[in-house]
């Protein structure tokens, strides 16, 4: 699902378009047309995304999104914001100040529900030397914090929440969206990454305090470079636990990664084959950790599988 524009026709970011609240945002293979009357959404978006991925005009958009206050009393009283996709309102409203998170989560929802040309895994995906580590994660696994740390220590970000797998060749397509962090992780990553660019923190969300981290510039620059999976790593954060990497059976890894796929069932036998091939050619591990620096060391030492198989 790529925009039909070519590089020559991509327009430079239009400050006027952003200010007018009507702009196109490119993230990975998807283009979203955004209408919003909320000033801090374009500001927040401009902070978190690559300027040349925001523009006044594209020929095509995958999603048409409106982020706006609701009609009625909540436009003024304890004001709220709503996310609309093609006229559908999929979410309860959030406080107006949370426009950036609701946009980010809404865009996740769009992709998960519409982008069935990919096999989508609930996983982070990071790359180094042409090899991708896919990290499926249930809530509480610490996946986002781990990802935020690793992509600031030599790894390239493809995605922190949704690994897009090509059904034709099993490669992972970059999405490169802002990384959603919450509560203590925000301070942790601020320390870990001097100069990290965050959106304004939103407090009292259902997840606690939430802030979005802008991806590293190189990750944004390389959004058009898919890469091949080499590791499937199931992370698990436990405070105080030493970093431990344990081999996980491939059969178990296959069923677990399928369990973490959003649209595995849609793709049937093809989905099974694609995931099975990925498992076959990847090293599979469970990873427990309690300290980000230790985790970085373990990941730095990962060996890709040999050509003949893992």
């Amino acid at each position: 699902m790529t925009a039909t524009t070519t590089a020559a026709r991509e327009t430079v970011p239009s400050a006027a378009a952003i200010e007018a609240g009507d702009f196109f945002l490119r993230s990975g293979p998807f283009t979203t047309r955004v209408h919003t009357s909320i000033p801090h959404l374009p500001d927040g978006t401009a902070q978190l995304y690559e300027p040349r991925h925001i523009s006044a005009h594209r020929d095509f958009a995958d999603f048409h999104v409106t982020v706006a206050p609701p009609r009625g009393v909540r436009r003024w009283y304890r004001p709220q914001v709503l996310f609309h996709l093609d006229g559908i309102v999929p979410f309860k409203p959030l406080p107006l100040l949370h426009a950036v998170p609701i946009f980010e989560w809404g865009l996740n929802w769009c992709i998960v529900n519409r982008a069935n040309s990919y096999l989508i895994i609930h996983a982070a995906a990071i790359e180094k030397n042409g090899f991708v580590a896919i990290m499926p994660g249930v809530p509480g696994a610490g996946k986002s914090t781990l990802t935020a740390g690793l992509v600031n220590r030599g790894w390239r970000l493809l995605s922190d929440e949704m690994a897009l797998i090509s059904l034709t060749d099993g490669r992972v397509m970059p999405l490169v969206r802002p990384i959603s962090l919450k509560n203590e992780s925000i301070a942790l990553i601020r320390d870990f990454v001097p100069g990290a660019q965050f959106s304004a923190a939103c407090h009292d969300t259902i997840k606690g305090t939430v802030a979005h981290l802008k991806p590293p510039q190189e990750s944004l620059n390389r959004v058009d470079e898919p890469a091949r999976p080499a590791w499937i790593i199931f992370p698990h954060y436990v405070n105080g636990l030493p970093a431990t990497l344990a081999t996980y059976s491939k059969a178990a890894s296959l069923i677990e990664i399928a369990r973490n796929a959003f649209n595995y069932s849609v793709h049937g036998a093809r989905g099974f084959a694609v995931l099975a091939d990925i498992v076959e050619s990847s090293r599979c591990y469970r990873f427990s950790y309690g300290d980000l620096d230790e985790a970085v060391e373990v990941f730095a030492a990962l060996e890709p599988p040999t050509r003949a198989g893992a």
Partner: protein
Amino acid sequence: MAEGQMRATGSDALPASPAPDIADTVRERRRRVLLGGLAAAGPMIVTLAGRPALGATGVCTVSGYTSVNPSQATGNSQTCGDSPGCWKNKNYQNWPGMRQDVTPYQAYTHDTLLSDGVAIPALAKSPFSNTNVTMGNTIGGGGTVTVTWTFSGIKTTTLWSGGQISNVTAALLNQGFYGPSNYFHPSSNVFGSPDVRSMINSYLTSNSASNPGVIYYTSHPDGNTASKIATLMTSLDNILNAMNNQGELCPG
């Protein structure tokens, strides 16, 4: 580590890969069998159930991607929502919309409204005592029409054995707890508010006012109440049954 694979020769057959290392396979299996795996301490087979596409609402995913802490998650939180029986047996603290900072638990009332004025139902107290449960629902723009769905003194067996009321209740609870209205959840298969609203509308306006404990509104803001009285109850039940995994046990 030598690894092997085998592929079925189905209609989408791919070329067979090199034969597995049979000796390794036998060795591994023999080892596991002799290690006392026969006592079946763990499951011999683990099944990841496939989910069919369900109409316009898309596919039921089995992936966990919920903002809700898993310790609070109800049974099939990753799938199509929970069955009425699952909700019935669940600790009511996990019902959406319950304030837990007061005792007895009370419902949030009109705390959130969507642009078309549909509120997530607020639930008061446990329905499994004989005290009242009120589901407040405002339908229509600007809060002009109010529906109150009250269960007064209905015994639990009555409440949950009736197919329609329990199914629609479960649909509301699923929508409030798992639905896309719950900050973020990818289960688009759970009916969104407009769908639930129209289902409730159909249910309410197609039932007689003699249904004990249920109060109906008399007009719909869209102005075409009559046209909305379609006899959908059978198909609604079927849809909800399928969506709510009727009869499935709640894991955990």
